[in-house]
């Protein structure tokens, strides 16, 4: 079942088409990888999906509803949550309060938010730092906190923007575990990442973009073996070369 449908999304900046007729769907209960080299337009797509950039053309539909021009707050209420590449937490309140605020922002009562925040703190191993101001947390801890804020009330779609970039391997494991656990419970993810092993590990399907267009869609292994995708990442191949691969054995 298609949860989020993106249809011919386009955006120009000045004379450049950063996103040019991009279409794909996110199916309920899947982890979809959105990959592509730098500058391919992934972040612009994400910004449009999260309401921070109005598209020049195209439609975004969620659960059948047209949400193309909805502002970020409305999208969040509708269940489209986003995590940022540079973590955005409320720096001058405690980590625990961050979770509470996130829960109450989604409509939960303070009591319910508190309950859920307590269990999230445990799950995300943030116990020792929960009373520190979020600004004092390490980068990895902040990412985990953002996860918590995203999931304190189950989102319809969680869009993750390079969540594993520059994260300690131990944290990475905690995050991956978290994603898998939620996925098993039926959560849907859109994962933008450069980290191929993680993409292969977590995603079932993938969409690859290059220069503002979609160049491949399908099962994650298929996409990573697609000729065009490999070229986009690694440059052109020549006859007789050992065929390169984007999949790294883990």
């Amino acid at each position, binding site marked *: 079942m298609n949860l989020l449908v993106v249809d011919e999304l386009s955006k120009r900046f000045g004379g450049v088409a950063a996103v040019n007729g991009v279409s794909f769907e996110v199916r309920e209960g899947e982890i979809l990888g959105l990959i592509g080299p730098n500058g391919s337009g992934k972040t612009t797509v994400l910004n449009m999906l*999260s309401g*921070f950039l109005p598209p020049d053309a195209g439609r975004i539909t969620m659960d059948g509803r047209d949400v193309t021009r909805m502002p970020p707050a409305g999208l969040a*209420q509708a269940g489209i949550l986003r995590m940022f590449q540079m973590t*955005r937490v*409320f720096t*001058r*309140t405690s980590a625990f309060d961050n979770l509470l*605020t996130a829960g*109450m922002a989604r409509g939960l009562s303070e009591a319910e938010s508190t309950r859920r925040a307590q269990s999230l703190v445990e799950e995300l191993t943030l116990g020792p730092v929960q009373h520190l101001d979020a600004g004092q947390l390490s980068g990895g801890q902040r990412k985990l906190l953002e996860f918590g804020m995203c999931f304190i009330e189950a989102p319809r779609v969680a869009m993750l923007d390079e969540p594993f970039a520059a994260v300690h391997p131990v944290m990475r494991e905690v995050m991956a575990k978290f994603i898998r656990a939620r996925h098993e419970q039926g959560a849907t993810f859109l994962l933008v990442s450069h980290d191929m092993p993680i993409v292969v590990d977590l995603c079932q399907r993938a969409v690859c973009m290059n220069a503002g267009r979609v160049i491949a869609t399908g099962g994650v292994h298929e996409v990573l073996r697609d000729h065009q995708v490999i070229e986009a990442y690694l440059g052109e191949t020549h006859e007789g070369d050992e065929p390169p691969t984007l999949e790294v054995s883990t």
Partner: protein
Amino acid sequence: MKAGPASLWRDRLAFDARAAVLLCAVLAALPLVITGPYAQGIILVSMYFAILSLAWNALAGYTGQFSLAPAAFAMLGGYTTALLDFYWHVPLVLAIPAAVVSTALLGLVLGKLVLNLSGPYLSLTTLAFAEIARVVIGNSHEFTRGDQGMHVATLTESRLAYYYIFLAALVLVLAVLYFMLRGRLGRFMTAVRDDAIGAESRGIDVVRVKMIVFCTSCAICGLAGSLYGTFSQLVSPELGLLQQTGLVLAMVVIGGMGSLTGSVVGALLVYLGSEWLRELGNVQVIVFALLVILFARWVPGGLWSAAVARIGRKQA
């Protein structure tokens, strides 16, 4: 480090509220000890500033909107009451609430103007707004008697009665702000302050939060200005001088931007200090401007955070 799963925000607020109640109780009892009308007058005026400080702290300290217009709104509130009284002889019972309403509406306008602005742009625009208001009022001789100011009726001739009127207003404002901060709005305010974009992406209606806080803050300033006008029986454009806003800034920065009690304490200290310094030789603005700079640079949480840290260390 505090143990237990309790929310730190709630605790901080509760502690703050208890301190505020204590402070108000002290203020209520003070006239028993301080009986001279001059001294009572000084504390009274510092309560006026305390109300302005609370209003500005709500907008700037808690919501991150560094408006430079609080004094201007006090002036606008004062003039609303004065004009209603002078031209239409509206009784003060109506003219004072009218000031609250008018400044609330103007606050809404200003809030709308600066919605998409941040940082220096916001400060500049509010500064422009404040100065335009002051210049317009100062130059409208036919309506407002310009720089000379206007006479205003008074609620009572008794200074002591006015002392308690201001105290009641202070308590009212503290109560209003406390209840605002305690619920969802308070959390959303600080969220907007810390990261407006992040707040939006989590579902917080940032526009609504900003408008509510602007409206409330400006209305509180209007109330203070209106009451002050009836107390001194005079309103003039001097109420809205940038220097007055500077004083309010100093009070909040020195007192501590993260708490309600801090603002009141800051107002009391700065105003009482300034009266004392005035006698020493008119150096009060110099001293407080210097203190603002020193505090902002080296003790950013103000006296409140220093005191809290001290108490925290004692408990640990």
